[in-house]
């Protein structure tokens, strides 16, 4: 029974990991940029939500309404003012600049909020659960987060493949010069992609802050989870990323079930096994 419970919890946790991963995957798909500071932005969003909830006295879930557009705005400005300058044939500048950003965000958060762990309280919903046949209880909050994660993935999928914005993303990703020739400003399109990425990060950060305690140093760990979900699922495949997140979540929970010290290790090992057996991920995009 414990095992089944661990697996179910792992699946629900996987939704959160997919949220960590989706924004990462999106910007890589559009501009071949890997944002090393991605995890730190998740933590930044969590802290912003913390400040918002204490300042306004609202439920952290309500804070989403503020945090998501704020993060999107940060993403757009960051891309236009800094990251666009790093894009080119050389992979070093974007990598090192986002690495520098990661250090800046971590230490700025440390300066402002100190190293103490924080947590947000979403109220009674945190303890509510649904009894399912077989004597299991599924928490309402984890379930809600999972449903939101699936909805976000579906939404991103729709934007990317069905909307005008998605067409622009794909066109610029395919051929930057030619996209300019039909009137697309790539700097703006890249800005929108980063805005969308950080909007998802906003959701992920709020959820993270409700689910677990957080402190300024945990960003890189979230980046790694997101990255592992992307690689397990297969580059460029959003639904694959969701499954990658689930595999990661389940592996971690099974590991923890065996020995609490093995939780993270089990997730990393699952990732390394996939990398060894199917280096392009379980569901690579067919181009």
């Amino acid at each position, binding site marked *: 029974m414990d095992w089944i419970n661990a697996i179910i919890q792992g699946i629900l946790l996987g939704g959160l990991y997919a949220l960590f991963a989706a924004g990462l995957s999106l910007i890589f798909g559009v501009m*071949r940029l890997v944002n090393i500071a991605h995890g730190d932005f998740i933590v930044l969003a969590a802290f912003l939500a913390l400040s918002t909830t204490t300042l306004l006295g609202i439920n952290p879930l309500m804070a989403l309404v503020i945090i998501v557009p704020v993060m999107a705005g940060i993403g757009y400005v960051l891309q236009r003012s800094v990251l666009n300058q*790093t894009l080119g044939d050389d*992979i070093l500048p974007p990598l090192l600049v986002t*690495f520098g950003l990661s*250090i*800046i965000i971590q230490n700025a958060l440390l300066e402002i909020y100190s190293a103490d762990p924080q947590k947000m309280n979403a109220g009674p919903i945190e303890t509510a659960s649904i009894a399912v046949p077989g004597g299991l209880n599924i928490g309402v909050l984890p379930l809600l987060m999972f449903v939101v994660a699936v909805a976000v993935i579906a939404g991103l999928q729709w934007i990317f493949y069905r909307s005008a914005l998605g067409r622009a993303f794909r066109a610029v990703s395919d051929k930057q010069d030619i996209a300019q020739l039909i009137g697309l400003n790539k700097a703006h399109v890249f800005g929108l992609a980063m805005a969308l990425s950080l909007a998802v990060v906003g959701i992920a950060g709020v959820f993270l802050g409700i689910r677990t305690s957080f402190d300024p140093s945990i960003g890189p*760990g979230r980046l790694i989870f997101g990255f592992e979900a992307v690689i397990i699922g297969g580059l460029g495949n959003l639904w694959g990323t969701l499954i990658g997140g689930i595999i990661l979540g389940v592996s971690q929970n099974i590991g923890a079930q065996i020995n609490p010290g093995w939780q993270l290790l089990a997730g990393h090992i699952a990732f*390394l096994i996939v*990398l060894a057996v199917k280096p392009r991920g379980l569901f690579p995009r067919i181009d």
Partner: protein
Amino acid sequence: MSSSSYTISRSSRASRLAAIFGILLLVALAAAPWWAGRADMRLLSEIFLYLSLACLWNLLAGYAGLVSVGQQAFVGFGGYMLFALAMFAGLSPLAAIPLAGLLGALIAVPVAVLIFRLRGAYFAIGTWVIAEVFRLSFAQVSALGGGSGTSLPVGIVKAMASNRSMREATTYWLALGMAVLVLVVIYLLLRSRNGLALTAIRDSELASTNYGIDIWRHKFVVYVIAAGLTASTGALIFLQKLRISPDAAFSVNDWTAFVIFIVVIGGIGTLEGPIIGVIVFFLLRETLADLGTTYLLILGLVAIVVMLKAPKGIWGLIKARYGIELFPLSRRVVDRDLEN
């Protein structure tokens, strides 16, 4: 002036002057136990070890196109191997240091086979995962203190040398020797066929996503050598600290962020860059370290600004302006009549 008076040369006046100056500097530094204080020697050792880490990271990122943010995996691994070999195999630390390097190179083989499947930036994060796996794994080894770590037993430390000042001189010389060894190995490696191939690869396929077996092999060799030397350096670092824990051994800030900062500031893809960078880094640290987190904030900002405004770093600016090179790597056509 006949055509036969032209030769192909790597050295220049600047590089020969630098060589003479370098040898003098080396002699002076080797004599430090006779002229420097205890604190100065500790600082110098730390500088040498950071120089060695920076040169190795630069070899990977600046020459082989392997941008790693997980070199702390090998620093920590080397440190832990030193402790394990000294505590359980009864080896003297002096013998354990090269052995830790060898083991680091060995473990790098399967690691490389795995993570070479990732390209570019994803390779970078892959190296980070490996470092995390190492950290979490060593945290599980209770014989080495698990998550809280362990200290090197006093007996082992005392057996290194007859008295404290001799011991300090020994670790100092080891650190200096490590930096020199790393510089020499990298210099020879870059002048070898392998190095020429690397430069060709770097210059032609920076963003390439697919490379052939030959390129794979060149990169593999560099990765394994860098891992071995990084592990040896790690062993030395923790021989100086006398205490090791997973968080300290596999710290991304200490062993990768600072190292990247040094290389970026100094000039990536040049041998001189890390030397300049390490000097700048320690000057900043000695003057600003009291600021704590603000100091790290400044480091991050400086690194970003340099990357955006002067991607070749301080040395790149000097080289572009004066065209000098201290380590003669590029070949030049020299008119003998003018030279003599």
